[in-house]
Each structure stands twice: as structure tokens, then as C-alpha cells.
């Protein structure tokens, strides 16, 4: 072995040492500007990428609703409260400058109108309810995380629970845990497609408790979604007016 060869070997050994040192340095804390590799992994239960929280427009006065942004005359005026006395809350569907498109709690399902931004107070809602008619389950999500999953009763084949995107319009206390709707009933913005009138109402669908818990999990209602009384009480503590409800 020549001296030159030995020198090459020794040089390679030193270079390898330096490389090892650099690799070990890879486990060291990052410095500002190179933290991209050190971003923490997404934690289990991270919010689903379902977009921002829902916006809800609230008004404590009669609210003018327009057919189009900029219309000089409102198409209708919504009272400050619902027929049951709930505060007025409308789910915002889109924005256009100083105008907000809102889902209306009127027939046909999916109706929209425009309100002036200055006429309402905007709030964001992190909660969302999802009803799976096939699985006959209801889920409450908060910030995209499922916090409640429960079996439900749904409409019959003759009076099916309508599908679509709705929201909570009313939160009513029946005052009687043995009431047919249990202690709490949520009124939704949607209506039955089969029943234009029911028990003096206009066929508005709801989510409520029941005095017949054996029906939970079955298709037995006139379109409402029934849950256990313990569940509806839990939901009442978590769900604000305007909470989106997707039924599908």
C-alpha cells in the first residue's frame, strides 16, 4: 500500500465521519426557516377538511329578505321570532359584498333569499348534525370531530324524512319528559315532501326525543328524526340555533 493510498483512505474516513455528524444533526431541533420537516403530524381526530365553520345570521327585529342583492324592495319579511318564539337565525349560504344569501325555513326545501349584512349579526357555528337515513344514525360534530353518535327513528316509506341541507330553526322545551316528542324538540328548516299539514303545523320536520324509545332505529315517523331523550337533552346543551343539519 502506497502512502498516497493510505492518505486517500484516511481522507475518506474523515469525510465519512463528517457525514455521520451531519446526519446525527438531523435529529437536532430545527432552526427558523427549515422547520418544514419538523411540522407535527396531524393528531388523531383532527378536524375534517370540511371548510370553515358555518355562518349564521341572527336578527332580533323583523328581517327584510330580498330576491336578489341590491333589490330595492324586499320579497318578504321574516318576523323577529319563529311561530314558536325562537330567536331568528338563518344559515348563511353565500356572500356577495354587503349581501348574504341565506337558507330560508320555508317551502320549498332549499329556498334561499338575500339579506343585508348590516341588518343581521353574524356568528360562526362549529357544530353540525348529520343524519344517515341508511344507517339510521345521527352524529353531532364539533369542529369536525364526532362527539355524539346515536341511533334514530326516521320517516316511513310513505312519509320519508326529506334529504338535504337544513339547519336548526327552533329549540323547544315541551316541559314534559313523557311528551310524544320527549323533553326537547328541534324544529328544522325543512318540510315533509308528503305532508303539507300535520297536527296543525305545516309539515315542518324536527329532531326530538320520544316517549316510545322502542321505536328508535326503525322507520316509523311521519318524517321527523327521533332520538333517545337522554340524547336530545345532551344535544340541547351543545347545539345553537342555525346549526347545519345534513340529512342523507
Amino acid at each position: 500500500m502506497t502512502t498516497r493510498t493510505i492518505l486517500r483512505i484516511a481522507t475518506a474516513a474523515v469525510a465519512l465521519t463528517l457525514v455521520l455528524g451531519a446526519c446525527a444533526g438531523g435529529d437536532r431541533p430545527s432552526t427558523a426557516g427549515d422547520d418544514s420537516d419538523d411540522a407535527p403530524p396531524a393528531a388523531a381526530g383532527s378536524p375534517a377538511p370540511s371548510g370553515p365553520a358555518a355562518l349564521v345570521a341572527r336578527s332580533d327585529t323583523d328581517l327584510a329578505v330580498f330576491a336578489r342583492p341590491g333589490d330595492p324592495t324586499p320579497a318578504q319579511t321574516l318576523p323577529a321570532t319563529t311561530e314558536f318564539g325562537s330567536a331568528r337565525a338563518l344559515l348563511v349560504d353565500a356572500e356577495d359584498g354587503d349581501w348574504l344569501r341565506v337558507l330560508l325555513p320555508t317551502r320549498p326545501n332549499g329556498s334561499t333569499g338575500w339579506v343585508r349584512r348590516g341588518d343581521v349579526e353574524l356568528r360562526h357555528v362549529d357544530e353540525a348534525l348529520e343524519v344517515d337515513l341508511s344507517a339510521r344514525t345521527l352524529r353531532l360534530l364539533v369542529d369536525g370531530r364526532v362527539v355524539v353518535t346515536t341511533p334514530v327513528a326516521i320517516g316511513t316509506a310513505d312519509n320519508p324524512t326529506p334529504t338535504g341541507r337544513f339547519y336548526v330553526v327552533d329549540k323547544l322545551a315541551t316541559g314534559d319528559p313523557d311528551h310524544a316528542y320527549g323533553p326537547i324538540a328541534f324544529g328544522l328548516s325543512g318540510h315533509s315532501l308528503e305532508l303539507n299539514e300535520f297536527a296543525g303545523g305545516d309539515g315542518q320536520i324536527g329532531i326530538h326525543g320520544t316517549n316510545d324509545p322502542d321505536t328508535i332505529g326503525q322507520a316509523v315517523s311521519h318524517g321527523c328524526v327521533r332520538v333517545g331523550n337522554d340524547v336530545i337533552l345532551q344535544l340541547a346543551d351543545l347545539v345553537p340555533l342555525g346549526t347545519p343539519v345534513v340529512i342523507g
Partner: protein
Amino acid sequence: MNLNPGTRTLLVALTVAGSALVAPAVALAETPAPDGPIGPVDVANPIDGPGPCDDPGDCVTNPTEPEPCDDPGDCLTNPTDDPDDGGDGGDPDDGTDVQPPADVDEPVLADPNFTG
């Protein structure tokens, strides 16, 4: 192997130097990574990393030092620089469009007539 004295001396010197570099490299490799960034990261965003330390030397050797600095000049950061004192205001996407959360409304006493 027949080596002349100069070559032997050079080889020994390089071997010693290499060993001196390997030891700290192995030590670093065996050191578990801390939970958060330290050192220079604190300069950019003091709230992201572990708290600054009392001893400037600890910034390098003890990244988990949780105690705030007694001396603003300690370490590489200034612990008296409150990150909430008008800094970047958080996520720039928050903007001014962020609305306050909705309160959970109390139920209204009523007799519902939904499609039970």
C-alpha cells in the same frame, strides 16, 4: 505494513481526529428529539418552542428547560417580548371576517307540531 515515520504520524493524527468527531455525532444521534424547536427557533417565534432558560448554555444542552429567563438578554431570545403584545395577530387568514361563536340558545317552552 511498512510505513515511513511521516506517513505513520499522519495516519495516527487523522484517526484521532476522526474518532473525536464520531463520538459527538453518535451522542447526538442517540439523543431523543425534543418535542418542540429550540434555540434559533425561539428568535422567530418564542411561543413555539420550549421556554427560554436561565442559563444561555442551557439553550443548547437542555432544550426542555421550562423556566423563563431572568435576564432578557439570556439565550437567543427576549422573554420579555410578549408574543401577544401586538405581534402578527395569529393566523393571517383569520383576518377580520372571523365572527364570534354563536351562543347555545336556551330552549323556548312551546308545544311543537313537527312531523313526529
